[in-house]
């Protein structure tokens, strides 16, 4: 018997008598469906639906068999049996009602097809559009989401948003090429951002006013946006302003200073740890296990465990585990070698950081001086870098206007 039969309800009957086979045939001829028909001598057991059970009276009268109701199965009988258990029935009805109501709200947001943008980033943006978990799915405008995502995320070339039950599904396709045209036509000069000497200059657009070997100060214009058009005899017949573009390398000096004290304090963990648990609701952290930690000095390490019924859907409640680690503060002194190592490592880190930003180191003249209370590292690091900035040009008034004033 299927689920549908269970919902409609069915009965199992036992038919006894000499006309059992005849009874079965009459049932069949009257369109009554019989299931799980088993027979032994003059007795046959069978299942039939409740509506069919109401139709067997004439067959019973004709054949003279005795019919016994063995079992009643299915939802109608279950409800009939429990009709006096009001709260039980109400509970089921309330459960169904809550299910139906909640299915009309948004409980999941799924993002597929993204590789450059993270799902979190996209969901955060969707949330900023006032689309959030728990809102009515009828209020979600898929068209608006699609338009907004295409507008906000440059690399997204195609978006499809649809509501599937209580789930918002977002399918995106990203542009895998990095060729985003960012050509800017606003007139801009290129100026030096640091003092130094020009090492090389390659101009693509604009008028260069410095050359390699020139010494420049921060703020000096290096490439002008003003471009004059000259005729065959070298006379200017027009001026236009462009967005200056050039590769300029400037050799400049960085002053480096660093100090390290010989005496230092460090935390010596005693190994004693106290644990506690808590709960975080929204931004409120509730520590309900430990009153006050008795250690004099301790670090608190808190681990959070989010509760996620589905992917990308975290409940605003988080479990928190606290670990109070006791430590004592001890003092010690570095040796000369250790001080030298610390400062050398800091210099290396500084230089690596510069190189990662595309800055070329030409000369490093940093010296380490070790004294009785500590050590210092001082010196100059000469580098080559593209130390330039863009600034709006000072536009000259048009020539005819000047002429007008002179007259």
């Amino acid at each position, binding site marked *: 018997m299927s689920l549908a039969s269970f919902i409609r309800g069915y009965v199992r009957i036992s038919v006894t008598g000499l006309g059992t086979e005849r009874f079965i045939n009459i049932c069949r001829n009257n369109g009554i469906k019989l299931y*799980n*028909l*088993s027979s032994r001598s003059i007795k046959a057991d069978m299942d039939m639906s409740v509506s069919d059970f109401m139709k067997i009276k004439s067959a019973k009268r004709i054949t003279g068999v005795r019919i016994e109701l063995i079992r009643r199965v299915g939802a109608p009988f279950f409800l009939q049996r429990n009709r006096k258990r009001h709260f039980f029935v109400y509970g089921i009805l309330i459960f169904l009602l809550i299910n139906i109501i909640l299915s009309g709200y948004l409980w999941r947001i799924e993002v597929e097809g993204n590789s450059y943008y993270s799902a979190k980033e996209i969901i955060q943006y969707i949330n900023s559009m006032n689309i959030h978990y728990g809102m009515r799915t009828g209020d979600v405008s898929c068209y608006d989401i699609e338009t907004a995502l295409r507008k906000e995320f440059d690399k997204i070339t195609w978006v499809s948003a649809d509501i599937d039950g209580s789930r918002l599904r977002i399918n995106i396709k990203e542009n895998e090429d990095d060729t985003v045209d960012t050509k800017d036509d606003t007139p801009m000069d290129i100026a030096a951002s640091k003092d130094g000497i020009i090492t090389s200059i390659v101009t693509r657009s604009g008028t260069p006013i410095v050359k390699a070997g020139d010494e420049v100060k921060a703020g000096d214009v290096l490439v002008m946006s003003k471009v004059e058009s000259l005729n065959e005899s070298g006379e200017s017949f027009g001026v236009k302003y462009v967005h200056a573009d050039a590769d300029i390398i400037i050799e400049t000096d960085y002053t480096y200073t660093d100090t390290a004290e010989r005496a230092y304090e460090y935390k010596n963990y005693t190994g004693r740890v106290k644990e506690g648990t808590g709960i975080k609701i929204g931004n409120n952290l509730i520590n309900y296990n430990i009153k006050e930690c008795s250690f004099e000095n301790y670090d608190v390490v808190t681990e959070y465990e989010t509760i996620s019924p589905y992917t990308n859907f975290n409940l605003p409640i988080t479990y928190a585990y606290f670990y109070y680690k006791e430590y004592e503060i001890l003092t010690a002194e570095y040796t000369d070698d250790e001080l030298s190592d610390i400062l050398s490592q800091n210099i290396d880190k500084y230089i690596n950081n510069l190189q990662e930003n595309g800055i070329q180191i030409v000369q490093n003249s940093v010296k380490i001086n070790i004294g009785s209370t500590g050590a210092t590292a001082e010196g100059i690091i000469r580098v080559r870098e593209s130390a330039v900035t863009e600034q709006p040009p000072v536009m000259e008034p048009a020539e005819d206007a000047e002429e007008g004033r002179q007259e």
Partner: protein
Amino acid sequence: MSLINVSQLVENYSILTVHGKREAYVENFNSIMELSDTLIKIKAKKEIVIFEGNGLLVEYMNEDDIKIVGNIEHIRLVEVSH
């Protein structure tokens, strides 16, 4: 050569389908003649089909067909004399 009318053929004959030893279907049958857990005798259009075995059970029966399950040992066809 005469053409065979398919619908007439289906009406005049019963179709017996057997799936291994555990299942058998009879389509287009007339009535059940005898029913027990060791023997089921079905009157088909032109013959009587006798299933013998043990634990025999009619899983369902409607106007069109009947499904018999159980441990089927023999199936016999006996011609009906008209």
